[in-house]
């Protein structure tokens, strides 16, 4: 009996311990991506109204976005809900960047793409598509006070600066405009809206539902519709929108059967309804500083969580990275062994370490994030938690830089320190631990602080794997309120406060560590007392 009790106590203790360990992860919105049966995991941008958008409550039938406290809604969400019901599974919505949708599907992180995606031949090579669940027309978004506001056909855009979203057929039709100045394709609609508003471009090609939304949200925008003859020539394959699934997915038949009964009239009715549900900002006509204040108040919780996540990832990443750097730095000081086998092992590890440093210093972190997150899923079937993936990437990346910094730190410790330790009879290990490393740590402190500040800023690239750090939260909010400058001004200030505070704290620690320049002998100190 006692033994059993003891075991239970230990189990409870272990659970408590592990929950403490996992606590920060759960607080900062880490998620367990369980692909158990009974879940229909759907990927979408949640930033392409009226097909899909993000909102902060569950009104109008919105669905909670996995790993966040925000909700997705829109035409796609309504369709996805019906599909999940048809398949008799629980709907899970994962917010994924447009570029990340295909890899997320093929690597098994999601089960379907319901994201206003057209079934192009290119995409069909990688994934299967269902029957259409919507068909749309191409329109042009322009500034309502601009030269092109009254355009009627694509010929009226002669010589205009036009762009569209990267990887869409919207972009490939642009050359149909005479003498058009086709601009670089852009990552997302937010970027294009900012570019349009700031007159970097004259217009962007989009589909009617998105156009209606943008026009409704921001009075500076106007949607130009074209008649049958005056518009872009498109194939039905492009304007159609379908559900993407993995090749050979057994659920496809059931999905198609459902969609066959989803008439065009029903589609249009649903679209009209969803456009009406779109969250609108009523702050639009206020002064910009009032808008900033309003955005800050409304989204304070989101921004604090985002800042917390950013700090958490960069802090852990910097600490783990510094430990990796110290480990490698110390490894490199080990004198070559006279034992041939050990010397051989040493050389192999040494080669691997060099390869690690060169590769991770020589490639962008954004690319590393993509490769690690989607690559592990494709190659090993490993489904990494996003936050864990983020921590791994930042740690490994920082480790590569820190090992070089530590090398410099060890190098700058006077040779006399090593000799004095040796002369006293210390072994290499004792010398390192007692004498050299404490000085190395002092030497690398400024560089480590620098790395920390860099990490705070660079974690923003992790938004590509949908880690809900500060920049990601900023994008989410701005995609809802269409006020990019106002939102990112807040994000900018938060980043600066974070980095500035940390720089000051580190400076303080340095001065504390160095102590005063002059020393008051003990006897004098006693007199003072």
């Amino acid at each position, binding site marked *: 009996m006692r033994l059993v009790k003891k075991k239970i106590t230990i189990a409870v203790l272990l659970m408590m311990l592990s929950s403490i360990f996992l606590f920060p992860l759960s607080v900062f919105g880490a998620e367990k991506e369980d692909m158990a049966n009974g879940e229909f995991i759907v990927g979408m941008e949640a930033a392409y109204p009226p097909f899909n958008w993000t909102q902060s409550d569950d009104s109008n039938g919105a669905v909670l976005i996995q790993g966040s406290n925000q909700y997705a809604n829109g035409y796609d969400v309504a369709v996805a809900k019906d599909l999940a019901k048809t398949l008799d599974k629980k709907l899970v919505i994962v917010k994924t960047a447009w570029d990340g949708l295909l890899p997320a599907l093929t690597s098994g992180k999601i089960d379907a793409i319901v994201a206003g995606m057209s079934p192009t031949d290119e995409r069909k090579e990688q994934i299967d598509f269902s029957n259409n669940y919507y068909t749309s027309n191409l329109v042009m978004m322009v500034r309502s006070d601009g030269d092109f506001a009254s355009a009627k056909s694509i010929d009226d855009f002669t010589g205009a600066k036009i762009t569209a979203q990267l990887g869409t057929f919207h972009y490939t039709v642009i050359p149909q405009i005479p003498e058009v100045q086709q601009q670089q394709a852009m990552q997302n609609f937010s970027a294009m809206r900012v570019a349009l508003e700031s007159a970097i471009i004259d217009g962007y090609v989009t589909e009617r539902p998105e156009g209606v939304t943008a026009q409704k949200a921001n009075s500076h925008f106007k949607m130009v519709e074209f008649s049958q003859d005056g518009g872009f020539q498109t194939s039905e394959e492009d304007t159609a929108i379908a559900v993407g699934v993995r090749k050979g997915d057994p659920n496809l038949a059931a999905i198609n059967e459902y969609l066959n009964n989803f008439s065009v009239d029903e589609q249009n009715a649903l679209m009209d309804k969803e456009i009406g549900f779109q969250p609108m900002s009523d702050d639009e006509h206020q002064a910009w500083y009032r808008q900033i204040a309003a955005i800050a108040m409304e989204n304070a919780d989101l921004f604090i969580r985002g800042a917390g996540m950013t700090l958490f990832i960069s802090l852990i990443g910097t600490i783990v990275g510094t430990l990796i750097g110290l480990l490698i730095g110390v490894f490199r000081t080990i004198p070559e062994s006279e034992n041939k086998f050990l010397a051989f092992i040493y050389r192999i590890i040494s080669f691997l370490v060099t390869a690690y440093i060169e590769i991770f210093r020589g490639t962008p972190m954004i690319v590393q994030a993509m490769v690690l997150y989607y690559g592990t899923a494709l190659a090993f079937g490993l489904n990494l938690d996003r936050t864990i993936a983020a921590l791994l990437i930042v740690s490994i990346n920082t480790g590569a830089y820190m090992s070089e910094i530590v090398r410099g730190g060890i190098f700058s410790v006077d040779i006399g*320190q090593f000799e004095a330790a040796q002369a006293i009879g210390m072994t290499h290990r004792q010398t390192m631990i007692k004498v050299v490393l404490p000085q190395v740590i002092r030497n690398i402190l400024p560089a480590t602080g620098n790395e920390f500040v860099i990490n705070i800023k660079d974690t923003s690239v992790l938004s590509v794997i949908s880690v809900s750090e500060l920049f990601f939260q900023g994008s989410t909010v701005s995609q809802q309120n269409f006020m990019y400058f106002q939102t990112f001004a807040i994000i900018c200030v938060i980043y600066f406060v974070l980095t500035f505070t940390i720089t000051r704290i580190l400076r303080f620690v340095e001065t504390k560590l160095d102590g005063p320049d002059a020393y008051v002998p003990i006897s004098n100190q006693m007199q003072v007392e």
Partner: protein
Amino acid sequence: MSEKILEVNHLKKSFGENEVLKDIHLNVNIGEVISIIGSSGSGKSTLLRSINLLEKPDGGEIIFKGKNVLSKGYNLPKYRTHLGMVFQSFNLFNNMNALDNIIVGQTTVLKRSHADAKKEANENLKKVGMESFANAKPSQLSGGQKQRIAIARALSMNPDVLLFDEPTSALDPEMVGEVLKTIKELAKVHMTMIIVTHEMEFAREVSDRVIFMDQGVIAEQGPPEQIFENPKEARTREFLQRFLK
């Protein structure tokens, strides 16, 4: 007859093409104070550093208490605890205060308890006249003060032999005295010491034997009176004339 503690035979050392030590022979008896003099580049520092193997000799043997320390499997760190070393540039551990500099070797290498190590450290701090600077960081001390702490650090390991590598060369003139005074005190209690130095007056006063090195060999050795007043070798005379002028 005093007992031999250290014996150097056929010791050779080259740095690349440059042969710094050529077939050196040296005996050290317990309680003996030996000064090594000679011009720069004569090999005197290299000899000292070879004795505690901060430089690895190319050939020869170093026999300590009857055992060759260059033989395979000899416990080198343990050997070094028997030889205290005082460096020209002090080499106090920058990350510790004076007291910890003296304690750390005792606790990590000799495995003494912290309390014992501290007691030993305080005694030696008193011996070098630095007891009121126990909590000072090296950066807060003058050169002479640092060197006295370094001597206390070496003494606290209870070495059989103390090696001094030009202990006053990096000091301002007014600080040389305090360090030399400390070494003289040690000579009075018959600490075995080998001192590489340029302080001729000091060498004459403190040494039992003076060794003059020239171009990698021991050119002449003998009691200080012989070396300083009646050198046999022409090059010893030449060196001293140049030096004492």
